[in-house]
């Protein structure tokens, strides 16, 4: 009986080993670079640089374009906002990051995990990515106008979580759908602590290096999670479009956008600019990324 069991286990092991080798040969590979960078205007993409890669980002918003030539459509405007960030790929599908944003003196910690990668033979038809961050508002704690009479450190914190489903449809077209949840520990009485949003973004490739890019993110008005009786001045959808140039180690994006916030929770919760109102609610922005491999 013992011999029979040993033989049986050996046969099962040999067959499974041969099968796994055959599987390895047939293994479907991930699609080639669905996006030019890990970031697409204000949104994350399913792209993560290979493990042990450091990424530096500079994201910038100029002022609103409503003054026209007087301030060169917002380029001379004092209402600019900027973020500098550093991300590091721990694994091929896991990246962590830290960044500093000018407005509200925010510092943020973030993490992105590619759970699934779309494959070339469609064995996995979509990429599935999770993204989360925590931001700390760094403004002076003595400012009672912001923090009230009873300052608490926890009131500085805000959180953002997002599920991203993306697909590279053709060599030139990639689209992502997103669903997100935003939470602020402290907001003023006219805002909500929580916000759910959905979005769509993508890129249409023009050549090996350049692409048209767009995004449209909508904060939803959900009564069940709102603390307001009526949505009197709700946050507005964020629309942006632009051009991306992506090289071996750099990506450069220039765009026209609605939101002057840079962190996603700021955009979903506080964007009051309405892209349908034209120049008075739009601004130029750009993003630069640089990669270093170790």
């Amino acid at each position: 009986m013992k011999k029979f069991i040993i033989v049986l286990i050996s046969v099962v092991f040999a067959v499974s080993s041969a099968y796994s080798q055959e599987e390895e040969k047939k293994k479907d590979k991930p699609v080639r670079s669905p996006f030019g960078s890990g970031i697409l205007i204000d949104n994350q993409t399913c792209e993560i640089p290979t493990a042990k890669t450091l990424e530096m980002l500079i994201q910038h918003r100029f002022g609103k374009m409503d003054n026209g030539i007087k301030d060169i459509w917002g380029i001379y405007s004092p209402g600019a906002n900027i973020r500098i960030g550093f991300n590091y790929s721990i694994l091929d599908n896991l990246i962590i990051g830290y960044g500093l944003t000018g407005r509200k003196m925010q510092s943020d910690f973030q993490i992105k995990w590619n759970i699934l990668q779309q494959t070339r033979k469609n064995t996995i038809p979509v990429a599935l990515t999770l993204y989360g961050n925590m931001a700390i508002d760094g403004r002076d704690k003595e400012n009672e106008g912001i923090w009230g009479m009873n300052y608490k450190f926890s009131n500085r914190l805000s959180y953002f979580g997002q599920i991203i489903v993306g697909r590279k449809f053709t060599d030139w077209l990639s689209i992502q759908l997103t669903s997100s949840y935003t939470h602020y520990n402290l907001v003023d009485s006219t805002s909500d602590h929580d916000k759910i949003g959905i979005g769509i973004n993508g890129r249409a490739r023009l050549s090996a290096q350049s692409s048209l890019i767009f995004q449209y993110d909508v904060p939803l008005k959900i009564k069940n999670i709102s603390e307001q009786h009526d949505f009197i001045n709700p946050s507005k959808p964020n629309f942006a479009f632009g051009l991306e140039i992506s090289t071996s180690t750099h990506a450069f994006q220039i765009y026209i956008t609605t939101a002057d916030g840079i962190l996603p929770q700021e955009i979903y919760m506080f964007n009051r600019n309405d892209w349908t109102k034209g120049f008075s609610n739009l601004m130029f922005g750009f993003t630069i990324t640089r990669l270093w491999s170790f």
Partner: protein
Amino acid sequence: MKKTRLLQVTTMVIIGLFLISWMVPQDQKKPGPWEIPSKYKKMENPYKDDASLNKVGKMLYAKHCKSCHGSKGLGDGPKAKQLETFPGDFSTAEFQEHPEGVLWYMTYIGRDEMPSFEKKITDEEDQWAVVNYMRTFAK
């Protein structure tokens, strides 16, 4: 007296500028011979003549290589002038005579100003697609 002095200085400055105009920036160094480990010399290209990779090779070359090596592989990309060493002319018979594995080594391992691309083009199929595309530059 003052006028004579001024004339002398002006003449010397003009002669000086004239002489400087003959000085040219130092030429780029010619690339020296590569030391390729023997295992790479014998390395075979499993995707040789795979026409399905033509577009992939062209796209990857444009993204990663063109800025230095130029669109036709002549070493005349916009960043080539900033390099101390001429990045090479891929269209020459001398270059094209290199075995497949040698081209792979030069491309992905690199040396000096030629960076390693092992972590930027990670898929083996894509790596060979670029080597195949470099073969199309032959005169």
